[in-house]
């Protein structure tokens, strides 16, 4: 396997794209069936193209949605209009998946939008229960996602908000002025992902020590660990064990 042939005739021998409905794009990080990277393709499935069906990427979920989500979107649109804001300026896209609605908000408008979510009588999301981050290193220009979970006790419903920012400019406006409960959650997200929440009253680390280098939940931050020996056999640390996609 060490000396590779100079030319790979595989490209020519591959079949053409099958006819039919357009397929989703190739997945940004996955390829093949088992994810083997370190040796030759012994399974024969290594060139398999994995389609990217993640609802988080791509466009808005096509309508119609469930009634409750259509109504929420309508009420949100009306509230935006009442506040004198254009819908398209604030909303990037809306994903309805598995019975949950996630509204992607353009980050520069987040602080205004959450205030509307809390104060408008038709929306009245009194609580922000959770803020957390997700790192997608393969999404160039949209690597860092922050997801907010809002809860309306008045109307007994929930909605998720999501804001995207690039790795090169990891700034997101803070929502602590509207939801004081987001204070620690934003500190945690900063601590783990390095996302800077502008106008946060005291954005410091919360879980890791103050002088800790790096942000541990990012995908480029290694898990670490040491091999463990037991009765003569050595078990590698978890991030070096064989893994499957």
């Amino acid at each position, binding site marked *: 396997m060490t000396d590779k042939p100079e030319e790979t005739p595989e490209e020519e021998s591959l079949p053409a794209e099958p006819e039919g409905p357009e397929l989703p794009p190739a*997945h940004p*990080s*996955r390829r093949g069936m088992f*994810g083997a990277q370190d040796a030759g393709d012994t399974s024969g499935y290594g060139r398999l193209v*994995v389609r*990217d*069906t*993640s*609802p*988080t990427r791509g466009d808005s979920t096509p309508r119609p949605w469930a009634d409750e989500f259509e109504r929420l979107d309508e009420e949100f649109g009306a509230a935006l209009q009442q506040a004198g804001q254009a819908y398209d300026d604030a909303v990037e896209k809306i994903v309805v*998946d*598995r*019975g*949950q609605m*996630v509204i992607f908000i353009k980050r520069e408008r987040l602080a205004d939008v959450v205030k509307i979510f809390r104060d408008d009588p038709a929306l009245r999301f*009194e*609580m*922000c*229960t*959770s803020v*957390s*981050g*997700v*790192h*997608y290193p393969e999404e160039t220009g949209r690597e860092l996602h922050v*997801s907010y*979970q809002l*809860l309306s*006790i008045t109307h*007994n419903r*929930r909605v*998720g908000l999501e804001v995207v920012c690039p790795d090169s400019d990891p700034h997101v406006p803070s929502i602590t002025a509207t*939801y*004081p*409960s*987001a*204070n*620690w*959650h934003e500190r*945690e997200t900063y601590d*783990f992902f390095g996302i800077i929440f502008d106008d946060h009253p005291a954005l410091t*680390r*919360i*879980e*890791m*020590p103050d002088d800790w280098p790096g942000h*541990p*939940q990012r995908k480029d931050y290694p*898990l670490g660990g040491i091999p463990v020996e037991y009765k003569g056999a050595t078990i590698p640390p*978890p*991030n070096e064990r064989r*893994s*499957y*996609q």
Partner: protein
Amino acid sequence: MSDVTFTPAEETEDPYAGVRDTTEGPVYTVTGQDWEDVVGAAAAGEERIVVNMGPQHPSTHGVLRLILELDGEMVTEARAGIGYLHTGIEKNLEYRNWTQGVTFVTRMDYAMPFHNETAYVLGVEKLLGIEDDIPERANVIRVMMMELNRISSHLLAIATGGMEMGALTVMTAGFRDRERTLDLFELISGLRMNSAYVRPGGVAQDLPPGAVESVRDYLTWMWDHIGEIEAFCNENPIFKGRTVDIGYLDLAGCMALGITGPMLRSTGLPWDLRKSQPYCGYETYEFDVPTTDTCDAYGRYLVRMAEIKESLKIVEQCLDRLRPGPVMVQDKKIAWPAQLAVGADGMGNSLDHIRHIMGESMEALIHHFKLVTEGFRVPPGQVYIPIESPRGELGAHVVSEGGTRPWRVHFRDPSFNNLQAVPATCEGSMVADVIVAVASIDPVMGGCDR
């Protein structure tokens, strides 16, 4: 300042002791056995005293650090410092397969392992789209374990809260009852805590023989003995003197700070996710949502006490509706193949299962091997699953990228969120009341720091 006898920091062996000059004036750090120095500094007219209560303090429920600024006995500012028990569980999850994740999340809030497991598992099941295929028996067992867990968690909160006030008998009675609950966990799941019992698709194994009778005995015993703690506390003038109007936080405060659970219900709002946004079939059980309107530590104690009784009622209903049947989803591509059984040396691999895969069916062996080493794939997407834990809303944000491992799992832990109420409940009170106020929040640092 003249009669202060502090040693300058550089002359002591302890780098943290002594006196330092800062921009705000001299700062004295006391570390014990220097009472004379403290008195001298106080006499010199130093007006700010900052006390670090914790992280190693018996009444902070683990490694919670409270930073208190005192004026005499009065707390003028209070801040909570957390992170001393951060173990990177969420990061570790990303390097294990979906089923192994249960073993990790159960260690987050170690006083409510079954709630952690269920929140995570409900998230995985929703991503898989199999939430309607979970067998009825598995759901009943999950509800029963969660309610038993709620009882043990509330008993722990009341018992340790009582101990911190000096009510040692409340502690012994509470731990006695909690121990019986943990015996049931051990009987059913094999472990007193960290059980990894709730699995994607169902539960790890069916109830062992004799479990139903044991739970019935337990219920009888609990109904006989739960009144003991109430008799100790409810009308006890000392207990009421320590808790009434202490740790006050009204509805507006709870809303702003995102507080849920008994703290929110002590303001009179009957918000309980088991009623308002039911999961695991809670809508089919009969129970009440107890509330009080006192907004204080006493009201929270009453709510917890009443919730224990409601949970006992739910456990009773669970026993009545247990019907024979599978406890794991029928889909063999998801259901964990390894079966456990109790052998001579305790819980271990079922010999019947070993015989089947090693001697009878090559396909079963391959299947076992694939699922245990590689695991199953979960279609891409993200869900947020909130459930009502003993401390409030426990949310699992589970993200999949289509692989055999979670892309990201984040737990919205109620202890983490509710500890933000420390300044609001403690400032302006006495130091002794801080203990009661924090105990009424009922933080568990394992869940808070994860």
